[in-house]
């Protein structure tokens, strides 16, 4: 007779906690129970695949659950938008410093007489790409299954766009006017459309 392992496997604790934060109190225990049940079943064939499946469920479920909570609870809606705005802004800043500037700086060092315009264009392109990706992440989190993207874009993308403007103005003021006005216009004038474009593309993919 084969020995049976009577210990029932447990889902990834962090994933479970993240999901518990997103789901409403009414559904929390039930939904975690469902996921636990299916995880235990999948774990019988492969522990790694079961864990991967669980994390995928958490990532795919969170946008729907957040939207549900936002519809039911105004305070949560405000907190979610602010939280995602701050998180997005940190992401944009990290991308700007560690990817866009590092790449542009590396390219400038490799060329004996760097053509500054080309280096600057590459820097801005990377900066805008990162901003568009963040816009896509915002859309994925806040607009999933939401057929009123245009109506809600202002309240949901607005705070992040405002932060981009504020950061650009602070940079300009703190540099004592060393940054030309054209830099400020470029940075703000293109970053906000990049954010919106990324959100629009991601929301179309999410909605259709």
């Amino acid at each position, binding site marked *: 007779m084969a020995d049976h392992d009577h210990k029932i496997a447990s889902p990834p604790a962090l994933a479970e906690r993240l999901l518990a934060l997103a789901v409403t109190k009414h559904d929390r225990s*039930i939904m975690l129970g469902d996921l636990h049940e299916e995880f*235990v079943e999948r774990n019988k064939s492969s522990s790694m695949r079961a864990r991967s499946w669980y994390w995928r469920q958490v990532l795919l479920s969170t946008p729907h659950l957040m939207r549900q909570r936002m519809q039911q609870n105004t305070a949560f809606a405000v907190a979610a938008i602010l939280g995602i705005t701050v998180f997005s802004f940190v992401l944009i800043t990290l991308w700007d410093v560690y990817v866009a500037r590092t790449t542009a700086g590396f390219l400038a060092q490799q060329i004996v007489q760097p053509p500054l315009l080309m280096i600057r264009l590459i820097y801005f392109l990377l900066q805008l790409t990162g901003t568009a990706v963040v816009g896509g992440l915002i859309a994925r989190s806040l607009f999933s299954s939401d057929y009123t993207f245009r109506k809600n874009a202002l309240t949901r993308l607005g705070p992040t766009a405002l932060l981009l403007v504020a950061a650009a103005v602070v940079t300009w003021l703190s540099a004592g006017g060393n940054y030309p006005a054209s830099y400020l216009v470029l940075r703000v004038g293109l970053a906000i459309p990049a954010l919106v474009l990324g959100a629009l593309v991601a929301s179309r993919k999410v909605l259709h």
Partner: protein
Amino acid sequence: MLVLAALIRLQPDAYGVAIRTEIERKTSRSVSFGALYATLSRLESKQYVESRLGETTPERGGRAKRFYQISTLGQTQLQKSVTELGNLLEGIVPWPTTTTK
């Protein structure tokens, strides 16, 4: 509509895992638990479905199941939606007909 149809197929044992599995099996469409429970919550608020709690089990981490069933209002709405869809598709695509004895 998919969720309501799945409830009818599975009753009286329609709960989250079973509903999700049934939809995936019949439609080849992957459904996340979040999407499913958001839909069930919306259907319950419209009184198209009713729910009751089941027993806890160790396989569910000591958590109970919630069984769902379609209400009379839900059945009426589903029938109405199917009829309306049939009317829209009439003459465009072959509409499956059920044969009765």
